[in-house]
Every structure is written in C-alpha cells, then in structure tokens.
C-alpha cells in the first residue's frame, strides 16, 4: 500500500496517506452513522430496501454483496501473493487462499463475537511488531528524504490519496456491523478514534518507509514494510526480521478477511431473506477461493487492478452510494419520522 502512494506522491507520500484519506474516512463514517441512527438495529441491506423500495433496495444490497466479495477476494489474493512472491515462490496461490478462507470461515461460523475478541487479542501484537520494526529502523532513517515537500503541486498528492482513501473507506463495514454493537450511540466517537489510530499507523509506516528507502525505492518495492524489516540491522545482531513482520501481518489479514467474510455472509443472507447466515459460509468461501486463485493472472495484474480500477471504484461504494441513501432518506420526511 505505501508503494502505490509513493509512486504518485513521491516524497510527500506520508502526507497523501494521512490528510485527504483521513477526511474521506471521517465523511464516510458520519454518513454511515447518520444512516445507522435513522434506522437503528438495521444493516445496510435492510435499510436500503426501506429507502429505495424493494426492488432497488435488493439490487443495491446485491451490489454491495458483490463489492464485499470482491474486496475480500482482493484481500485473500494479496495475502497469497505476498506469501508466494516473497517467501515461498513454488507454493500455489490456491493453498494459501484456501487456508486463509478456511480459517476465516471457521471464525465466521463461530460468529462476530469471536472475530472481535480475536481482533482484540491480536491487535496489540500486530501494532507492536510494526512499532518494533519502525523503532529498529530509526538509525537508517534520514529525514532529508522527505524534502522537498509538495514537489509538483497538489495533484500528485490527490492522485496518491485515492488508494489510501479506499482503504480508510473500509469503515463502510460499520454499516453492516452496527446492529451488532452494544452501544451504537458511541460508535461514531469510537470510529473517529479508530480512524485516527489507523491514520497514525498508516502514516508512520509510509513515512518510515520513505525515510529509509526514499521515494524511488519505496515506489519500486512491492512491500516496503517487509523490505524495511529486511533492512533492519541493530547492533549487527537484530536483523532478518521479516518473518516476524510477516507473522503478525498474517494475523491482521486473517482478522480483516474474516470481518469482510462476515459482511458478505450477513448481507447476502439478508438479501435472500434467510434467518441465519451460517448455510452461506461455505459456498461464499468457495467463491472466494476460486476468485482469489483465478481472477488475476499475476502480481502485476493485481497491482494494476488495485491502483487503477479497484481504488476509485471502492470510493464510489464507500461514500457515493451511502451518501445517495442518506440524501433519499432526508428527502423523504415520512420515512424519517416512521423509523425514528
């Protein structure tokens, strides 16, 4: 991810990674939250039907199922891609994809509570490993590499912001998870904290990659954080940290994939009018495995798709459509009154 940003925004990538996408995330969050407040205890698919009518609502829900599905396919594929490219080139992508989906599917079958608890457990470890790599890279950082700031004006920054914005925009998941939250009123505040934390992590990761490798190399690397872990050399003894980074990155990806997986299952169950989503877990998993394995031919294809097609498209789903829903809701006062 820092790599795509650095290709566009070069030495100002850290800026591109934080400001605009952060604002985008906050806007998305507030739209989602507003909708959630109008329709308490309802998910995106459920209130879409209320707002747009049965047919259009179902269609929107269907589109969102596809969106979540695609998002998770991309996540699974990225996961398998990193592992095969960097660590185990001879292993087929199918194996990693299948195992990730299997573990994710197990979590989804166990329910959202299990996923969140596991996330609670894993998050500190994940952050700790990132922080460790960044701390150990400090001797190799050169702040001069950030300069000159804003070379080439704002346009590269805006271009570079698209990919991170689509990443921050994943707060759209809250639209699906909101009914499961104990205290929905507090979600907005916590969402802001979460966004700020995500922004801090993402910005510091991008910034430290830039400070170590400079804009050219950061843009060239597929996985700058990994290279950073490889570059670490503290006291000529603490080195070769990439496995550590990979290990905790795997845990993070598993959690992320499970949450998306859950969103797919829940939304499609509501689309189909099922009472429980459990019967969908395995078919959806199969679709994901197949999609992740066969949809993209190579790493370059995936990277190109991510940078050129997926990120802009994701912006539409994350902010565009919910905004539309909100506007329709505001324009139809009866709807508002009834659901309050």
């Amino acid at each position, binding site marked *: 991810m820092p790599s795509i940003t650095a290709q566009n925004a070069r030495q100002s990538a850290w800026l591109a990674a934080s400001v605009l996408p952060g604002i985008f995330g906050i806007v998305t969050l507030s739209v989602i939250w507003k909708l959630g407040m109008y329709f308490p205890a309802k998910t995106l698919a459920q209130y879409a039907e209320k707002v747009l009518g049965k047919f259009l609502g179902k269609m929107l829900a269907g589109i969102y199922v596809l969106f979540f599905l695609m998002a998770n396919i991309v996540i699974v594929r990225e996961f398998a891609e990193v592992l095969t490219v960097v660590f185990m080139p001879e292993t087929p992508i199918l*194996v*990693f994809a299948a195992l990730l989906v299997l573990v994710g599917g197990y979590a989804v079958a166990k329910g959202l509570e299990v996923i969140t608890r596991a996330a609670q*457990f894993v998050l500190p470890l994940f952050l700790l490993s990132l922080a460790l790599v960044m701390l150990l890279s400090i001797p190799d950082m050169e702040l001069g590499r950030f300069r000159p700031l804003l070379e080439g004006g704002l346009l590269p920054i805006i271009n570079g912001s698209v990919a991170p914005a689509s990443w921050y925009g994943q707060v759209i998941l809250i639209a699906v998870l909101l009914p499961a939250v104990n205290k929905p009123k507090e979600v907005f505040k916590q969402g802001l904290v979460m966004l700020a934390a995500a922004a801090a992590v993402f910005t510091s990761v991008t910034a430290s990659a830039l400070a170590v490798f400079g804009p050219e190399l950061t843009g060239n690397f597929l996985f700058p954080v990994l290279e950073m872990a490889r570059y670490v050399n503290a006291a000529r003894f603490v080195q*070769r940290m990439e496995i550590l980074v990979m290990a905790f990155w795997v845990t993070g990806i598993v959690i992320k994939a499970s949450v998306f997986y859950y969103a797919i299952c829940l939304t499609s169950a509501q689309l189909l009018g099922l009472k429980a989503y459990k019967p969908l877990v395995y078919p959806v998993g199969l679709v994901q495995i197949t999609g992740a394995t066969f949809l993209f031919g190579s790493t370059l294809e995936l990277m190109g798709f991510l940078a050129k097609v997926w990120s802009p498209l994701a912006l539409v789903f994350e902010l565009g459509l919910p905004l539309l829903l909100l506007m329709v809701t505001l324009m139809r006062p009866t709807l508002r009154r009834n659901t309050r």
Partner: protein
Amino acid sequence: MFKQLLKKFMGFGGKKGSGQGRASQPQEKRPLSANIDKNLQALRETFDLCGDVIFREFKLNAEPPIRAFVTYVGTLCDEERAGEHVMKALMHETTALPANVRLTQGSALEIVQNRLVTLTELNTSSDLLEVTKHMVNGKLALVIDGSATAIIAGVPGWENRAIEEPDSEPSVRGPRDGFVENLTTNLATIRRRVKTSRLKVENIEVGVLSKQTVSVLYIKGIASDKIVAEVKERIKRIKVDNIIDSGLLQEFIMDEEITVFPLIQTTERPDKTAASLLEGRVALIVDTTPMTLLVPATFITFLQAAEDSYNEAFYATFIRLLRFVALNIALLLPALYIAITTYHQEMLPAKLLNSIAEARSGVPFPAFVEAILMELTFELLREAGTRLPKNVGQAVSTVGGLVIGQAAVQAGVVSSAMVVVVALTAVASFTIPNISASFSIRILRFSLMILAAIMGAPGIMLGLMFILFHLCGLRSFGVPYLSPFAPLSPSDLKDTFIRVPWWAMITRPRLFGAKEPVRQETDNGPVKPGEGGGSS
C-alpha cells in the same frame, strides 16, 4: 469436526431422550415392615452373596427382651465403635435408664435414639432401599422389632490415605497438604481455610447403579447465582452408572463437546481451592477423588501455580512471564524449527545456518521427519516414565535422555540441533503448572508441526489463528475462556501475567465474582513507620 466420528463411537446414534438406556430405571419405594423377621429376610435377600455384610441379631436388655439386629458392611465400619456405642449401649446400659422410662416394643425406637446410642451422626429411615444405600455408604443400620423404622448410625471406619503433599502440584512455599480420597477429609481441609457460614456445601448424588456424592462448594454472595445454578443443573442432568473419578464428571459438565483445551480446572490443593472459592468460583469435590474441579475456568488459570500467590509479587510476576514464554516454546519451538530450517533459512544468522547445515548434513531425514521422530521419542519416554514405578522411571529417563539422545546424534539419525530443540521443548512443557493444559499443548504442538512442514511460518500463523478463534469461541460455564484478555477487562489483568501485591488486589475477578466485587479495603497497603496513624 470430530463430532460425526464421535457419533459412530457412541453406539446408538445419539438419540437423546429415547429412554431406553438402562441407566434410567425407576426406583420405587419399599417400606420396612414392623416385623423384624420380614425386615431381616428382606435385607438378607438384598445383600445376598455379599460376603462383607455383617448381620448381628441380639436382644435389648428389657423386660421382656426386645429383638433387634444391626447390619453393616463390615469393611466400611469401625467395629470397635459400633460395639462401644451401639451394642454395649443397647445390651448393658439400659439398666441405667431412669425408672420412669420403660423400654417396651413401642417406645424402643425413641428411647434408643434419644437415650442409648451415643453417636452424633444418627438418622432414621423407613425405606428399605434407603437403608441399603446408607449401608453401602458405610453406615450401620439398627432395626428393632416392632418398629418399621431403622436407625442409621455413622461409624465410618475404612482405611484412608494420609494427607500428603500433592504430587502433581508441589510447592516450595505454601501449605503442603493435598486432597485425599475421602470427601469428609477434603471438606475439612477447605473449611479450615474458609471459616464462614457463607461457605455452602451442597451434596448431590450422581450415578444410578452406585451413587457417588458430589459436593458443590461455593461462597454465598460471592459466587454468581447463575453459575451455581448452572453447575447444579448440569450435575443433576447426568445419568450414568457411576462416577469413578472427577475426570468423568468433568467431561459430562463441560460447555463444549469437542475441544482440546481443559474447560474445567482441576487441582489437588486445598489452598488453591479455597482461594478460588473466595474469587467467586465453584468447587466440585467428588467423593473418593483427590482431584477437585474448579469452575468456571479461564485459560490463564492454567498458567498459574498456587505458589504465585504466596511468593513476592515481583518474583511471581517474573515467574508467570517466564511460564508464558515457556508455553510458547513448548507449543511452537519444534514447528518453528521445521519452518525455519526448511522454508525460512534467511532468518538464521549466517553462522548458525552453517552450523545447523553441518549438523544436518549426515542426517538422512527431512527436518520434519526428524522433528516428529524426536518428539515422538520424547513422548514415549515421558509416558514410560509416568507409568513405571518411580525407581524404574528414573532408569528410563536416564536411558532416554543420555543414551538415546547422544546415541541418536552419533548414529546420524538426528542432528544435534534437533536434540537441543526437543530438550528445550520438554523442559518448557514441564513448567506448565496444570497437567491438562500441558496435554493440550502437546497435542497442538504436533498439529502445528504438520502445518509448518506444509506451509512454513504462514502455516503456523494460520494454525495459531485457528486456535485463537477456537479459544475465543470457548466458554466455561458462560464465562469467556480467554477473559480477561478477550473480552478485555483491564482491572482483572492484575492477576494474570502479572501479579500485583495483595494489598492492591482490591476487587474480585469481574466475570465470576461480580456480586460482591470489593475484596478488601483500599488503604491496606504497607505503612511506613511515622506515616500512618500517628501511633509512634
């Protein structure tokens, strides 16, 4: 995923409530009769071919003499006490009765009960089956002619193991007594530690063929009512022949059908049991079992030894962190060895890589086979060491450790690096204080080794995530297994990997002691001379 397989083993398709199981035969009442011969006849029939049951007929010293008999399982009762307090009293001391009290067939029961038998544990029963039940529990039955009620007297007299230091949980600091096979002794050791009437002991009898007493212990007002009710409910649901050991009970009352993790804590230590009771947990003591069950259990309790509570806080914290490291070593080290030597060689420093390569160059097996071979050897040795008598067991460990380890390396079957890994794993797994937890670690270790052999470190991580999801889904009597980490409850972290000094343990664990959350006053901390109270 084993559920299906399990069903096959269960024999009859797992049809619940079909009522055909022989374990649920109904038991009607059989009242005693007033005729002593009939009663004698009935009891003799019941205990037909029971060589250890003693019947003794005699006459009460009265005018006219009243026929009576005592019967008991001779091996369970103290003959001397029975003779002293029952026989002697009935046959001789009737003369000491006040003159206005006349011993007749009609008043015999009342007089014997109130004035003659000098035992404190005395009951009556008018049901033959109940009398039988009391007798197999080591009670003496006294039947007097003319009354349809038997007097049941407790003169327990079987052999007991003396209280010893528990083998499975030894400690350096702290009490040395452990539970024994006797319920009353066990209850006594706990009562001596929790001296309050709020400590409740509810006895539930489990078993259809043979009834075994299960005591449910909890402190009223601290333990959650819901948990206590749930425990009792689950125990009452069990319909089996017999509970030989608390291990059987444990598997009947677990939350999850299939898991490798122990969802119920076992301990041999009364002090640990008492401490758990004070935290709001429930203890289950099964008669004839030295292993007490503690519920609800959380994962972290398996990494805590009783001694942690008695040692200095800093030291206890250090030891607990050490144990956590050991847990990770025991779980992961062989898997990591496989993953690193076959997939991620770039992780090793160059020199170490070279020396491992040197060590491995004579070994014909891949690292995975080598690791499995050595780990299995170790498990074999361990099992052999446990099952053999103590002195032979030592010989086995000598043979295993020295001869096989050294010889295997010299013969080129395994590399010396692998021996180091196995030894370290073994040592680490011994530091886990709870046996059942170390069992689950051993099982998971092998699964992770297989995953590591297939996919290296990503395989290990995916496996760990699977385990984590499983753990997060587990509950022990409604309490999340991974609490207080997930869900996080910061105030309960004070007694997990760290142990804060006792004066700082203000509250009980939130999830099972919430009814009376405050354990002690907040100003209990040590006071430096001159600062506190102005006493000097």
